[in-house]
């Protein structure tokens, strides 16, 4: 008996490796190829789609759970497995996942360069033919929001939200100090000075996660540099960032430093938002998507304040910083039809209205933001985004990540008083040169 036992233990030891792998293999195959065979899927065959987005928080989380459920009910042969991680973690995770042999079928993407990177890597399915097939669906999406998902006249993504950046300001404080809404940079600075003189924190700003500063830089670049030059520089093949406007833009940001709260690099954006809500700061540079996070909690009247026109700036002051966000489909998906079907369901008018109402973000579907689904502030926010003469995309997703990194790391140091705008631009130019060489 003992001998048998010993023998069995020995076997177990020797094959522990092999068994370890083979047991683990089974679930993998199950998840990798849920259909279980390679034959083209019949209509009634069970299909599983993996859906990866970046909103693990409520209300978004619940909304997506409901959409998935509704879609599965309508299409009993399709099952959707959802996964969600937040922002920065998402950026890292999606790179990791798209590098695997088994990427998610449908995944979230920012627009602009961020999306183009996936297109160039052959990770995004060309959706042009699907859009042509279902013209009605395609036409109800805002034309302008499709552009940042289009490369070489081919559509690679479906926009879900529209979003723009604008200042939120505390109307109480402005009224108390008799301040008018500033429209130019110099008026803006003197307004900030008055606020400061009266003991308020003029602008609340949390840059611990440095994407926050990219929104300032993006807007300032757009204001200071003329359109065609900026377009050339933001293109990875031709970007040189030689224009003096870029240095000027950073200098403008430097001018704001005295009016930010203390410790900008030590506070995160959420905390900065809290300072605005708690009336500890008068102005907050925020996305329209944040209206839903601010409005229910504020006990004071507040409104929007356009980023002021800058004297001497060569960019169009009627532009807005913002970008659509949406979804792309993996180029290697086994079930492109089903995946497209889900996106069409997600961006149908009915779902879009529910999205606006439940989540409080603004849909890229025409007419989804209306009196039934949004607050007056929300409707005003959307009007501002759609009325803009053009969009300057988020800097951190519009440029190559190496250039973004040079910008953001440099700006954090500039905010700490350790780096000058000129020095930052030197780093940016160096990074741009690398990117140019790479894109050859």
């Amino acid at each position, binding site marked *: 008996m003992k*001998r048998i036992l*010993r*023998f069995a233990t*020995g*076997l177990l*030891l*020797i094959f*522990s*490796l092999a068994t370890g792998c083979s047991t683990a293999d089974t679930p993998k195959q199950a998840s990798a190829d849920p259909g279980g065979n390679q034959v083209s899927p019949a209509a009634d065959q069970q299909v599983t789609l993996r859906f990866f987005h970046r909103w693990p928080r409520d209300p978004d989380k619940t909304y997506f759970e409901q959409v998935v459920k509704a879609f599965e009910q309508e299409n009993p042969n399709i099952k959707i497995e959802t996964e969600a991680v937040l922002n*920065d973690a998402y*950026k*890292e995770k999606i*790179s*990791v996942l*798209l*590098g695997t042999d088994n*990427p998610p079928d449908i995944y979230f993407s920012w627009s602009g360069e961020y999306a183009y*990177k*996936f297109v*160039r*890597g*052959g*990770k995004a399915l060309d959706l042009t033919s699907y859009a042509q097939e279902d013209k009605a669906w395609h036409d109800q999406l805002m034309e302008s929001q499709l552009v940042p998902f289009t490369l070489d006249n081919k559509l690679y993504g479906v926009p879900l939200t529209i979003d723009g950046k604008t200042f939120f300001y505390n109307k109480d404080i402005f009224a108390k100090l008799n301040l008018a809404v500033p429209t130019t940079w110099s008026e803006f600075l003197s307004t900030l000075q008055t606020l400061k003189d009266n003991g308020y924190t003029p602008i609340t700003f949390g*840059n*611990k*996660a*440095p994407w926050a500063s990219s929104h300032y830089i993006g807007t300032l670049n757009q204001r200071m540099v003329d359109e065609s030059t900026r377009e050339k520089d933001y293109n990875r093949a031709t970007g040189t960032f030689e224009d003096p406007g870029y240095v000027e833009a950073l200098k403008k940001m430097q001018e704001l430093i005295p009016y930010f709260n*203390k*410790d*900008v*690099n*030590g*506070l995160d954006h959420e*905390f900065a938002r809290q300072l605005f809500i708690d009336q500890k700061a008068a102005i907050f540079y925020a996305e329209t998507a944040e209206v839903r996070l601010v409005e229910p909690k504020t006990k004071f009247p507040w409104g929007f304040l356009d980023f002021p026109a800058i004297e001497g700036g060569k960019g169009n002051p009627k532009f807005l910083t913002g970008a659509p966000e949406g979804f792309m489909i993996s180029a290697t998906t086994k079930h492109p039809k089903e995946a497209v079907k889900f996106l069409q369901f997600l961006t149908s008018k009915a779902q879009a209205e529910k999205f606006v109402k439940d989540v409080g973000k603004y849909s890229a579907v025409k007419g989804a933001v209306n009196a039934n689904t949004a607050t007056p502030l929300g409707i005003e926010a959307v009007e501002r985004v759609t009325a803009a003469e053009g969009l300057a995309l988020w800097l951190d997703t519009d440029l190559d*990540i*190496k250039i973004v*990194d040079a910008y953001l*790391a*440099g700006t*954090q*140091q500039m*905010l*700490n008083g*350790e*780096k000058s705008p000129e020095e930052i631009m030197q780093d940016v130019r160096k990074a741009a040169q690398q990117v140019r060489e790479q894109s050859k």
Partner: protein
Amino acid sequence: MFARQRSRCGNSPSNKVSAQKARQWSPERLHCLFIHLGGNDMLQRKYAGYLYVLPGFLLILLFIYFPIVQNIQFSLFEWSAFSADKTFVGLAQYAKLFHDPIFYQALVNNIYYAVISLIFQVFGGLVLAAVLEDKVFRKISPLFRTIYFTPVIISITVIALLFDFIYHPQVGLLNGFLSAIGLESWTRAWVGDSATAIFAAIAVSQWQSIGYIMMLFIVAIQKIPQELYEAAEIDGASKIRMFFHVTVPQVREMTFVTSTITLAGAFTVFNEVYILTGGGPGHASEVLGTYLYQSAFVHDQMGYASTIANVILAITLLISLVQMKLSKTGEE
């Protein structure tokens, strides 16, 4: 019983046939090999040695050494995680790395990490262990030992997230404490300030790990024969003298072990820095670990990340070689 087994599978001439049959990898052969474990004969024990070592060793080969080799290959290419084609660039990535100021920044931060960790963990941990093992503190030492060791068992994520609150510039414990004792001017955004960010992360490491190293030294000190102290005491040696002349030499081996752990930890640190500062502000608190991670999964420069990994590898190997030369571990 054992004799019978041996005759069935072993060397006795009558068993040649079955031995040949067993040459194929069959359960029977396995069985025989296992019974060989019982053999006293050196030839047989050769196989047995392999069998005992094999499962673990294969795992080490596949998951530790194979990736190391592959990593060297990876570093010679420029490639992206989500693109199949790799461009061979030779040693260009290394050339680029050695001209990369961020790399040097990270390296300097790792060196800070190493030096501070050696002082606080190895030296501090040894002193703490010696003090707690001293007769004077016999009574209270179990309680202190327990508390000092507590952070060790708490997940580093918990600790780093907790310190995120402690370092918070406006509502954090640290700034609150400094203000309370009248050191208002010392308050700062600890993780947002380039001058302090890396030290804030290092401090968290010390807070967590001193107890661990201390515990290892306590074990080592308890192994020291009591007579040595008694002899020293009779000679009228002071406590400090005893520490340096009895304790320190006696725990020499453990010192090597703990220094190795600490140094290797310092050059591969990732968690605290990633959670607390993400390498920022700018790249002020970048360490090699975070830079590697960023290069791979944020910048999508897989080849460059592999290059950084190889530099970490070279540094840690160097440390280990020095340690191995100095200590006797791995000899006897």
